[in-house]
């Protein structure tokens, strides 16, 4: 049973409180991602779950077993987990094969089967042929993949992955993502994933936990996180967003930004005079002209070509708005006057 | 005393693995064939002498298993001290060099009085009150010189002479903190000439060369021309062909009559007594002489190349063993203080 429950977990290092209180559950077979700014406590939570850090307070349950509390502590090796460390933790004294084979060796897997499974794992991470290299003869990305192969080779009940793909190029990343998802589906294992790559989080997760300074801001499936962020922090952290100050025109959700931009939003709880409107760049269409509700005039200030898209920063009366344009469509230059059509916006208390 | 009386079970305290199961007196009851069981001898006599006498002892006492613990006098006594502290004395018989140590042991009531059948034949210091110990071999502190460096006619004649500028930086002496016989000679000389003697030695560049064997090497190799050292060391290397010669100082050889004594805690007193008798017999004494020491008996001749004891014994420096026993620490300290930097 790899159903996980965090019960108001607190973690302090000396007098620095890193996790003030963390409660969440992860279902059996779920793919859960921890998302949050650098230093918010993601690695700490994973390490608590793995059993490397004791909790200062609170409880961690795996299925029906209390594995961590201030007085109870099931050691890591009893938790049947696979883990990729943010620092890889590839053993420098073992070659690639032995590094990956280790979890199988511990489990006493027979020689022949072990060999097959290791080679399969290496194939999954695209490292065939490097079995006999020592870690010091590998590039950074190759080492990271060794760590990944080692984590999955024994097909544990639970995989804890701490930025396992951070040093891989886009192509390989995507391939790895796919393989991971595949493994998870096939074995029905629970995965707790830490990443700073949003696309990764979105594409792979069943649910995402957005953390901030050790506190959970929102737990929800990816689409909900993206489309209905609970807080300004979540909206800002997940995906790009333009924040614009707005005045509430009527209680049905009509707001006005700057001189001429009128939008319809769902107003936040409580009554407010002024709110913060949040608009995602991809929810804005940019064109040469147009008018009406949800449109605003502006001037292109900066323009960044990103290959598959073009980012425009457009100055409007309500503030600067970042817009994503498709390179195939009409292109605009710095200085051009444009009209923005805003399709969707949220509002948060100011 | 009594702190170390043998209240412990038989034989278990013997350090060198003596597995004797003998009960007290078991050795004595077996009439004609002599003592039996086992016997542990702690000694500082040379291993080659032990090798020599072992078969003889075996012949003399076929039922007795004799075991040896051999080391320098100082090591043996240190070991004994620890055993006394632990209340587990492993030795039945003790044969170390320094007579004053036996005075100490007797004071502590650790020695078994025994007047050997050969006691009267012993011609040196012995405990004539209690028969707690008796001399069994004689070592002499003398002067040695390297014949490559010193002509016989130039050789020093007295200890006193060593403070003469003629011998500046040429003299090496044994360290009394490491050697019991050197302690005796230091004591004897300081009593005879006062501590000034050592101050003069020091100012004359005399060097402390470590233990007897190390001083012996320094003399033999010519690092130093003259040494104050044991006669037996000189005799031994001279026989080997090394360029050394012995001088029996005219101001008095220092005679160290090393005793033998039985520990009170022994479980096999009969055997111990029998072995003491043997050592004091002419056979035992011949072995001693082979080891370049003098016999305590007048009817056994001197070692090869040595002056007979009788010739120099009269002029020897007298040593008060009781006094030395109570002041050995003081003597060492004073010596260190004078010679140290």
């Amino acid at each position, binding site marked *: 049973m790899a159903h996980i429950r965090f019960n108001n977990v607190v973690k302090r290092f000396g007098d620095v409180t890193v996790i003030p209180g963390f409660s969440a559950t992860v279902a059996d077979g779920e793919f859960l991602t921890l998302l949050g700014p650098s230093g918010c406590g993601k690695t700490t939570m994973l390490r608590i779950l*793995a059993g*490397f850090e004791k909790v200062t307070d609170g409880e961690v349950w795996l299925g029906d077993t209390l594995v961590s509390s201030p007085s109870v502590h*099931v*050691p890591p*090796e009893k*938790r049947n*987990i696979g*883990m990729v460390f943010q*620092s*890889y*933790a590839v*053993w*420098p004294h073992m070659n690639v094969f032995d590094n990956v084979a*280790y979890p199988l060796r*511990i489990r006493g897997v027979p020689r022949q089967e072990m060999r097959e499974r290791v080679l399969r794992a290496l194939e999954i991470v695209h490292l065939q042929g490097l079995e006999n290299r*020592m*870690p*010091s003869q590998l590039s950074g990305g190759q080492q990271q993949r060794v760590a990944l192969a080692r984590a999955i080779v024994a097909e*544990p009940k639970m995989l804890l992955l701490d930025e396992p793909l951070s040093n891989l190029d886009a192509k390989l990343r995507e391939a790895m993502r796919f393989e991971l998802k595949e493994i998870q589906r096939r074995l029905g294992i629970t995965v707790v994933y830490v990443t700073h790559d949003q696309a990764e989080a979105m594409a792979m997760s069943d649910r995402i936990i957005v953390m901030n300074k050790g506190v959970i801001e929102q737990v929800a499936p990816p689409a909900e996180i993206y489309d209905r962020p609970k807080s300004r922090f979540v909206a800002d952290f997940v995906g790009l967003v333009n924040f614009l100050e707005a005045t509430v025109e009527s209680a049905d959700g009509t707001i006005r930004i700057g001189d001429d931009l009128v939008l319809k939003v769902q107003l936040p709880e409580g009554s407010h005079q002024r709110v913060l409107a949040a608009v995602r760049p991809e929810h804005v269409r940019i064109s040469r002209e147009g008018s009406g509700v949800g449109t605003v005039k502006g001037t292109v200030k900066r323009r960044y070509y990103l290959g598959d898209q073009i980012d425009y920063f457009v100055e409007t009366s309500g503030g600067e708005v970042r817009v994503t344009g498709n390179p195939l469509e009409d292109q605009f230059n710095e200085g051009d006057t444009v009209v923005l059509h805003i399709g969707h916006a949220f509002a948060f208390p100011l | 005393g009594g702190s170390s009386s043998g209240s412990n079970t038989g034989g278990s305290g*013997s350090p*060198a*693995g*003596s597995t004797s199961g003998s009960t007290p007196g078991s050795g004595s009851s077996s009439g004609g064939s002599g003592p039996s069981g086992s016997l542990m001898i702690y000694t500082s006599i*040379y*291993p080659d002498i032990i090798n020599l006498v072992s078969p003889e002892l075996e012949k003399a006492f076929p039922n007795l298993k004799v075991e*040896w613990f*051999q*080391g320098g*006098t*100082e*090591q043996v*006594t*240190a070991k*004994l*001290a620890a055993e*006394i502290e632990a209340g*587990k004395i*492993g030795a039945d018989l003790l044969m170390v060099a320094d007579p004053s140590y036996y005075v100490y042991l007797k004071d502590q009531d650790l020695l078994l009085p025994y007047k050997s059948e050969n006691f009267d034949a012993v011609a040196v210091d012995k405990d004539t009150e209690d028969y707690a110990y008796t001399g069994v071999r004689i070592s002499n502190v003398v002067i040695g010189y390297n014949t490559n460096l010193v002509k016989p006619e130039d050789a020093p004649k007295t200890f006193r002479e060593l403070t003469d500028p003629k011998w500046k930086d040429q003299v090496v002496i044994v360290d009394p*903190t*490491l050697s*019991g016989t050197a302690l005796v000679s230091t004591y004897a000389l300081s009593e005879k000439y006062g501590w000034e003697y050592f101050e003069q030695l020091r100012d004359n560049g005399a*060097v402390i060369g*470590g233990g*007897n064997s*190390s001083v012996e*090497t*320094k003399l*033999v*190799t*010519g690092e130093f021309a003259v040494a104050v050292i044991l006669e037996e060391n000189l005799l031994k290397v001279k026989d*080997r062909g*090394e*360029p*050394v010669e012995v001088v029996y100082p005219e101001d008095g050889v220092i005679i160290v009559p090393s005793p033998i004594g039985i520990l009170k805690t022994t479980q096999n007193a009969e055997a111990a007594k029998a072995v003491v008798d043997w050592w004091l017999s002419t056979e035992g004494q011949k072995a001693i002489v082979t080891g370049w020491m003098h016999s305590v008996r007048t009817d056994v001749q001197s070692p090869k190349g040595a002056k007979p004891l009788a010739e120099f014994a009269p002029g020897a420096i007298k040593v008060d063993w009781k006094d030395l026993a109570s002041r*050995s*620490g003081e003597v060492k*300290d004073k010596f*260190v203080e004078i*010679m140290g*930097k």
Partner: protein
Amino acid sequence: MSMRFRVESKSVAIALAVAVLLLFGIFPIVLLVINSFIVDGHFSLGNFREVYANKSNLTAVWNTIKASGLTMLFGTVLSFPLAWLVGRTDLPFKTVFRTLIITPYMVPPFVGAIAWGYLANPRIGYLNQWIRALIPGIEQGPLNIYTMGGMIWVLVLFYFPFSFLSISRALEKMDPSLEEAARISGAGPMRVLKDITIPLTAPAIAAGALLVFVAVASAFGIPSLIGGQARIQVVTTRIISYVYVGTPEAMHEATALAVVLLILSVIALWFSNWYLAKREYFTLGGKSTRPTMVELGRWKWPMVVLFAIACFVFAILPVMALVMTSLVKTMGRGFAFDNLTLDVWRSVLKDKVTWRTLRTSLFSSVLAATGGTVVGLLIAYLKVKTRVRFRTIPDFLATFCNATPGIVLALGLIIAFSGKYGLNLYGTFWMLVVAYFVRHLSYAVRQAAAALEQVHPSLEEAALSSGAGWGRVFRDVTIPLIGPSLVGGWFLVFMPSFYELTMSVLLYSSKATPVGYHLYHLSSFASPQSAAVLSVLILILVLIGNLLMRWASRGKVSL
């Protein structure tokens, strides 16, 4: 929950290790020390007052501090560049150099002192004779080994391997990108050494320095042979003069004086802990970097020559002096072609006792070294890798045992293990093993602790999360990662145990006579030549052993 009371293999192993140390090391010392407070059956500071009021003793304490301190300083200063050359550069022949440079450690210190006496006594020392032959007009000297300087020189040669071994292993393990980051910041090689390399190898440097300090403070052979003639009294020679009185009372005084060594060692260890505690030293992390060797370039051959000279002076010269001595017929005539013979060699090699005692010593010291390595590793692990309260105490205790002069420790062992307290090992082979183990344990602790300081915890955690229990992790990850240091520690325990003399002479039995006793006996009763033969023989055997080990492990395990 029952989980709460689970007995962990880790705790059990560590507790056992500590128990062994307490029983075999601390118990005898404590017995002695307690007894030293008892005069005539009452508690008293009399012994201490007596001993520490004595001016000679105070001078000896000062001399000990001076000799140990300077030896530590010079030993460290000497070993760092040598260790750096073999650990971090492309110096040719470095495996040979590495072994050669530590050969002094394979020779019993007192024999080494004798050898240096042959070489550099002011009158007829070989070196002095040569120098005088080369430069006419000098009457005496110019070298004189019988001075404070000479004594420190010999002490450095015999004890710097502590430092050399630990530093060279630490340098090999260091992530080169840490140094590279400093280079790229603009620091030249020397600056990098000062700012990065030395601070990051601080645990190893401190470990080595501490061992040198404590070993020298408690050493007897060299101070007695060289210091004696130089009229330099140190604490151990003073202790000996008490012990050699041969009475329990004097023994207590000796113990009282030995306490100053315990205190010195505690101060040294405390200081090193205090210094190390402020920092982190993980230089072996989870991301492997390329093991870049510093290319010496045009310095390569000059360095080879320099190193070769060092090896010649440290190792070859003294061994040569021993060999020369062992070949002469009569020492009085010195080394001349018509005065050579192989008789001494023949007689020592043919002597059955030689081989019997070698065997006994081999067994006892292998056991002591192996036990020491295991227990030392666990104690080091407790200290470095756990958060248990009082985790540093066992390390202190091991250092105590090391700081206690052999003779005192042997006395304590006799008192403790002759049956009075239930355990009777006295007079058995095991007594030797225990003595060697206890006395040298801290060498293993130090080496292991310094190596563990460098290992990033994630490497062990990765193995735990692979499902390995602690014991398995220890075996598969921890030990191999610090393996070379453990081998170094094993060797550091093995060697002095193999030729151990002071304790052996008191603790041997006729059934188990170690070679150290045989050596002592040869040098003091037979001839110094046979002792020289035996020392050279030991050296040859150890070197062969090292070669075999290297060959069997395909180069992975060696000195």
